[in-house]
């Protein structure tokens, strides 16, 4: 419904790695652990495709459903509705064995590197785990793969790091180990959930450069999840902006950053400072209010209560479909309805 032609016609089918249709992941909200009082609609009707070799950034405020999407794609949460197609196969039909194989195709860099690594395991052991889980019993082959993975994330020479425990490594080095672990099974897709939000500015750039390089060299598909729009320009091809469990705008990176069309995207960009001493002289204009409840989201357009351009009698009643603006650029906002 809201995906656009990629321009290369017949080949699109082969180029598509992942295809997500009307995806919903809701969590039941129970009182006293018993009585169901509603659903948290963390992912609420997503449609998108990811092509082989592209990096797509998913951007949105805290709580908008980014991690829930990641965990649904990983098969850790069962979708409430909709479907996920990977390499032309519907994940819903997978049995346990197929799901196991499917997980192997996806590398996961989870939010918070400090929680991601078991503190009592040496780096060698951390990297060996996924190999063992996926049936590799050949010690020599394991060791070769572990060293290759460390080299790939520039932890060199590997011998220096093999016997280190996580606490002996800097935040950036820990994140490299997390990435090495995500890469070791040669996945087709990497899902990186806020891979750098806990790190310093310089280390962020270092890690994002590394991820992007590996992704391009290996022609991997990368889903880069972040709440920080300023980090995406050089590290993704396309951006999807999420608000309250839905995609509100999608576009190639430069288009989205330079010509945003959804008022929410515009507000997000407006709020983010560049380092500039003049910032201290002005109060920023920000959308009023807070992100909405995902249990009882606003009617119509979910952004309408905070939107400076809301059209009375329309936006609070009818949810906007995604309107095409240009090839690959769409915004779910009535202001973009072709006249």
């Amino acid at each position: 419904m809201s995906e656009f032609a990629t321009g290369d016609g017949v080949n699109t089918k082969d180029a598509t790695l992942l295809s997500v249709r009307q995806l919903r992941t809701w969590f039941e909200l129970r009182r006293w652990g018993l009585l169901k009082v509603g659903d948290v609609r963390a992912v609420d009707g997503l449609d998108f495709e990811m092509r082989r070799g592209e990096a797509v950034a998913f951007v949105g405020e805290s709580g908008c459903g980014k991690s829930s999407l990641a965990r649904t794609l990983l098969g850790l949460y069962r979708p409430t509705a909709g479907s996920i197609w990977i390499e032309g196969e519907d994940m819903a039909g997978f049995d346990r064995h197929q799901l196991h194989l499917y997980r192997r195709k996806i590398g996961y860099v989870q939010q918070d590197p400090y929680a991601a690594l078991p503190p009592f395991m040496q780096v060698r052991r951390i990297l060996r785990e996924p190999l063992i889980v996926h049936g590799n019993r050949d010690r020599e082959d394991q060791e070769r793969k572990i060293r290759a993975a460390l080299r790939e994330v520039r932890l060199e020479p590997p011998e220096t790091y093999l016997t280190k425990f996580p606490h002996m490594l800097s935040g950036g080095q820990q994140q490299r180990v997390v990435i090495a672990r995500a890469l070791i099974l040669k996945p087709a897709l990497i899902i990186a959930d806020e891979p750098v939000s806990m790190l310093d500015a310089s280390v962020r750039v270092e890690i994002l450069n590394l991820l992007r390089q590996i992704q391009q060299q290996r022609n991997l598909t990368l889903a880069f999840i972040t709440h920080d729009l300023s980090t995406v320009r050089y590290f993704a091809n396309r951006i999807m902006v999420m608000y309250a469990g839905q995609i509100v705008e999608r576009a190639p990176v430069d288009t989205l950053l330079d010509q945003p069309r959804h008022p929410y995207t515009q507000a997000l960009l407006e709020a983010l400072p560049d380092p500039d001493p003049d910032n201290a002289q002005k109060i920023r204009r920000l959308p009023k209010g807070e992100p909405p409840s995902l249990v009882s989201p606003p009617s119509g357009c979910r952004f309408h209560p905070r939107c400076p351009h809301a059209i009375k009698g329309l936006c609070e009643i009818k949810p906007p479909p995604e309107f095409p603006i240009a090839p690959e650029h769409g915004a779910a906002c009535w202001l973009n309805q072709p006249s």
Partner: protein
Amino acid sequence: MVESNNKPLLQVEDLRLHYRSAEGVVRAVDGVDLTIERNQALVLLGESGCGKSSLAKALLRLLPRNVESLAGRAWLDGEEVIGLGEEQFRRRVRWRRIAIVMQAAMNSLNPVVRVGAQVAEPLRVHYGWSRAKALDRAGETFQLVGIPTDFLIRYPFELSGGMRQRAVLAMALAASPELVILDEPTSALDGLTQANIMNVLKRIKQELHTSFLLITHDIATSSEIADQVALMYAGQIVEFSSARDFFRQPAHPYAQALLASVPRLRRKIRPEYIPGQPPSLIAPPAGCRFADRCPHRFERCSECPPMFDRAPGRKIRCWLEAAPSNLDRETP
């Protein structure tokens, strides 16, 4: 503006805070000088682990048990306060004149006490105010930081992250201190919430003329309030400049590299990272602590550079400032 005959609000000289650890003495704060003027915001920038929080804790003497040594001097409005006894310091300085919002404070609110009562509590303890009077004041500070007063009776878990951050800010502001230290007040929050909090701080600064020491590693956000910037590296200040100079013409090679690593939304410049890692604070190099990673390193850098005065109020810890060939750098 501050009149020239006025003393600075806070002046810190040669502050040192060292910790004991199994590996050796950690020189977390290693000879820091700072000045904070009235109604000004000083931003303390630096990478994780460079000693920012330790500096704040030293100023307020909120110290862990394993302190090896605390030394240096600090004048608050002309009165030396590091030499004050703990009792005097607690009664006259901490919270009343210098208040702090600790790193991650929003996550350490008491989960079973209503936020209004948590803001009122110190007023009752320190000032002996009645419950009603303290709650009234809590309501006032809530308004100041932009929380609706009916939130006074809510519990922390009923507040969003941004609202909880405002609540801890309200606690720090309750006694109308002259200086508020904020340790990473926005780093756990997303962009819009961050911008909201920065707006609140700007308003408070305008309306109450409060001074701020804002500690952060978020360079872009720091420019939202900075009048002055102190850049810290491995326990020392390496650049002290006005915000204008720092963000427009950073002088220290580390400052230049750090600013080049910040992604820009409004300009297409590819961010560059700084190769290498900061040195250990247990055995820091004898010379310049940034030398290892510095593109301009030369022989002199094996000695520790002093703070050079580049201009009034602008200090740089770098030998390049001493070399005559570099004097022309002053007028770009």
